[in-house]
């Protein structure tokens, strides 16, 4: 929709708002505190079988035999499913959002440790588990490759014979048929002449930064249940962030029309990107169709480590600056460890890759981004979609440059940031983005002008700050329906999944604002593709903006109909009426409640007034050679963080004493929820910064459990933790709002590392900043490296 149309819709919105901007407590509060909230985790279907997955023990190999006889001999085992059974139903059993590269079960070969090879089905989950250990799978190992840079080199063992782009994303089509490479996607951006830029630079800085693999650890482990309805329809109940996508992908695999596949979900016990696109759904669907019984597969926490992770990444960054601190040339190469299957990795590579120059105005830029297959578990989206891997590089290097040039890090950023109206390296202009405002707020919250005591002796102190820029993913579509029922009560049907981010509450606020009713009285139905309309997915901080628009437009349609009914009843023009306090009111004081309006319209408590809203922002595909596009995103997101730390010089342990997380949010529809997103993101990212790391050796995860993979708890919190935001309404957002789910993860890692650098001048290039890694760097800097360094 164009800006003009949006403003048109807004023409009679009353300000100040009543529902928008109010910290409405989450609608589902009572259900969650009583343990009665619905999760797919809880679902049991009569006659259901439990599936337990038998997983590959090798990273790369040909399957030479599967012997299920011992498993089938166990009393209570209903079936053992392998790819042979799947192929009787699905001729081409490969799925995925970006590439059709992932087989429903291993097909001839395995490409990572933990890859599903077979499924044991039994009515008793303990029987299924016991029998799953008895399925004998024989492999002929193939040489494997794990490092993303090594895997991208010519001559590396090839993991997929040929690239198979899925076609959903048209800008990946050019990869069709490419073979003999592990590079699943190469995406470039070119602006100016980077060679000339470096030649004109006074100083050139070159670094390589790495981010380790981490994972989502959503507390409701991934779970799906499939059942037949009648003879030839299928229902999939799934803890998914993208029910619409699951429906299309299952329909495609089965060759069924979408109206025979129903996908529904409930509250999610966390998502963070782990439950996006398609995970267990194809597997439960084919199992249910093969045995003609309902099938449930629920992962354990341990299995999630082998299912989907955040990308490990290597980022090479070279920057040319003038002596006055202006950056004039930047070249970045990013290598993304996508694991054995692409999942959404190529899009992560592309969409975060094009922001790898940061929120800076640099004349000459060359960015090359590579999505790389390796023999590790698949990597996909994790809160931020790759932004934190690139901000780790450009914001760490920013402080190295600033210090070398003797410029204050805040001042260095002020000299280089993109100002309103300037073109981003992609050519899309920066608009509705408060980069200077976020820097000012950070400076204020960090009391940056105040003298800072860095300490001496064993405990040293430092402070740092960082920014991160994201372009909201595009193009995507959301559709919503708003109903008023016969008694005047209201419901929103939308496909946005509430996984803890509070979207139900926000959508109720949007509908409530338009219709003049309290958000608390609005019912928000959970996604069910048989009754809620299409949504691209709950991802990429897009829901408040896209679905917020769709719900708003649906509610505007309902409002127009209500005003029409009231106009006839009052004998006045509808434009003289307004929705307020659950009624339509006339200037002369006459009013009809929504219930009375419905009686007026249908003559009894009956009927529905229905409005539909659909939103897809404008978009222009980037030129594949240059990465240039005049319209690459509906809105820019900017996060900033400031950190103060104390570091123990004898142990290398970092104590974060202060962490401030700041964002440009457009307008906060629910200020309390916005703040909680920023705080939650800060803590999650602090875990990724300080200790979370999957340890992989030869593709085997050595710490695949919460006992060995620690996530932040109460005792890991920064002492002084706060969030703040800049609120300048986005001219094209619903009530001026932007998304905020991811913004808080862009900057904490480099802010903390920059504080370490400020404290002791030590450069640590790899995340996480474990005490061991920091101590090794300290010892190296002191000229007495550890013996094995």
């Amino acid at each position, binding site marked *: 929709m164009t800006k003009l149309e949006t403003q048109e819709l807004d023409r009679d919105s009353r300000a100040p708002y009543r529902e928008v901007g109010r910290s409405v407590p989450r609608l589902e509060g009572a259900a969650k505190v009583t*343990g009665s909230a619905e999760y797919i985790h809880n679902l049991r279907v009569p006659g259901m079988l439990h599936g337990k997955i038998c997983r590959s023990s090798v990273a790369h190999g040909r399957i030479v035999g599967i012997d299920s006889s011992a498993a089938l001999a166990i009393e209570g085992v209903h079936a053992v499913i392998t790819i042979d059974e799947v192929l009787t139903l699905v001729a081409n059993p490969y799925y995925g959002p970006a590439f059709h590269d992932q087989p429903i079960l291993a097909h001839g070969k395995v490409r990572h440790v933990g890859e599903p090879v077979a499924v044991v089905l039994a009515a*008793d989950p*303990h029987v299924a588990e016991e029998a799953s250990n008895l399925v004998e799978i024989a492999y002929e190992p193939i040489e494997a490759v794990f490092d993303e840079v090594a895997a991208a080199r010519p001559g590396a063992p090839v993991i997929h014979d040929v690239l198979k782009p899925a076609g959903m994303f048209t800008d990946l089509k050019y990869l069709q048929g490419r073979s003999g490479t592990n590079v699943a996607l190469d995406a470039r951006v070119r602006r100016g002449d980077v060679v000339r830029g470096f030649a004109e630079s006074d100083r050139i800085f070159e670094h390589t930064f790495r981010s380790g693999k981490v994972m989502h650890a*959503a*507390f409701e482990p991934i779970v799906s249940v499939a059942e037949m309805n009648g003879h030839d329809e299928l229902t999939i109940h799934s803890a998914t962030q993208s029910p619409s996508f699951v429906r299309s992908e299952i329909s495609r695999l089965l060759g069924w029309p979408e109206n025979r596949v129903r996908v529904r979900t409930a509250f999610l016990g966390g998502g*963070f990107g782990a439950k996006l696109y398609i995970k267990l759904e194809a597997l439960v669907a084919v199992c249910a169709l093969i045995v003609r019984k309902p099938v449930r597969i629920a992962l354990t926490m341990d299995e999630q480590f082998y299912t989907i992770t955040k990308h490990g990444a290597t980022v090479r960054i070279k920057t040319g600056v003038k002596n006055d601190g202006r950056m004039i040339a930047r070249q970045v190469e990013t290598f993304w460890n996508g694991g054995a299957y692409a999942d959404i990795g190529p899009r992560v590579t592309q969409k975060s890759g094009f922001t790898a120059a940061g929120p800076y105005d640099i004349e000459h830029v060359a960015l090359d981004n590579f999505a790389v297959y390796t023999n590790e578990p698949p990597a996909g989206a994790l809160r931020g979609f790759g932004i934190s891997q690139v901000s780790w590089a450009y914001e760490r290097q920013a402080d190295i440059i600033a210090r070398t040039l003797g410029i204050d890090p805040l001042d260095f950023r002020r000299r280089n940031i993109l100002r309103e109206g300037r073109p981003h390296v992609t050519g899309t202009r920066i608009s509705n983005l408060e980069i200077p405002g976020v820097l000012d707020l950070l400076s204020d919250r960090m009391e940056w002008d105040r003298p800072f005591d860095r300490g001496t002796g064993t405990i040293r102190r430092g402070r740092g700050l960082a920014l991160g820029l994201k372009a909201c993913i595009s193009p995507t579509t959301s559709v919503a329906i708003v109903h008023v029922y016969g008694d005047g009560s209201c419901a929103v049907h939308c496909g946005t999944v509430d996984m*803890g981010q509070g979207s139900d509450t926000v959508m109720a606020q949007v509908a409530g604002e338009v219709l003049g009713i309290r958000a608390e009285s609005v019912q928000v139905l959970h996604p069910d593709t048989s009754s809620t309309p299409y949504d691209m997915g709950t991802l990429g901080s897009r829901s408040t903006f896209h679905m917020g628009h769709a719900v708003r437009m649906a509610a505007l349609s309902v409002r127009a109909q209500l005003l029409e009914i009231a106009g006839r009843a009052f004998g006045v023009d509808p434009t003289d009426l307004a929705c307020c306090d659950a009624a339509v009111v006339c200037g002369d004081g006459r009013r009809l409640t929504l219930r009375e309006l419905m009686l007026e319209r249908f003559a009894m408590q009956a009927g529905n007034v229905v409005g539909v809203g659909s939103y897809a922002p404008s978009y222009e595909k980037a030129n594949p050679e240059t990465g240039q596009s005049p319209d690459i995103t509906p809105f820019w997101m900017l996060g900033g963080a400031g950190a103060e730390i104390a570091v123990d010089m004898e142990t290398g342990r970092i104590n974060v004493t202060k962490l401030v997380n700041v964002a440009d949010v457009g307008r906060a529809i629910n200020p309390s929820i916005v703040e909680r997103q920023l705080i939650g993101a800060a803590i999650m990212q602090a875990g990724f910064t300080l200790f979370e790391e999957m340890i992989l050796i030869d593709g085997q995860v050595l710490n695949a459990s919460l006992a060995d993979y620690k996530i932040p708890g*109460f005792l890991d*919190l920064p002492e002084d933790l706060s969030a703040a935001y800049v609120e300048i309404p986005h001219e094209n957002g619903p009530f001026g709002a932007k998304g905020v789910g991811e913004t808080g993860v862009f900057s904490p890692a480099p802010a903390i590392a920059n504080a370490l650098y400020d404290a002791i001048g030590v450069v640590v290039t790899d995340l996480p900043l474990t005490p061991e890694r920091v101590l090794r760097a300290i010892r190296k800097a002191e000229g007495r490296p550890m013996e094995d360094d």
Partner: protein
Amino acid sequence: MSGEQGRTIPFMLNDRPVVARVAVYETVVEVLQREFGLFGARESCGQGLCGCCTVVVNGTAVSGCLYLAVLVDGAEVVTIEGLATGGSLHPIQQAFVEKNGFQCGFCTPGFILMTKELLAHCPHPTTDEIRHYLSGNLCRCASYLDIVEAVKMAAEAGGSTDRG
């Protein structure tokens, strides 16, 4: 389950006498879900580390994903479903709602039951005491600051005393 692996156990569940047929290897969480349709205690990490599975056995909070069902033979078991009386929330639950002490809600029953135990021992805990007592419960959405506020509010509201 075969005969020698199964046992029939009576116990008190949320103040009501019940009987369940359980296998010796089954956990409390499995039996609560299968036999009683109670899903407020739920398995997440499966190692007793996250606290999502917390139930109270004879007045002590335990990890229901590890605690064998046969061990509750004759015991008093309280789950999150036993806290609200009639249609009204327990003061701790009310405080968690008002202070937004949750996001996805998956870990919330565990935090509430641990808070109940904390307030029974220590009716007016400091922030540090709250953080330490609840440090065995994890929240991946990281609502920790709000949880502390909720516990303080519950303490002020007399959350340590059971009603009715």
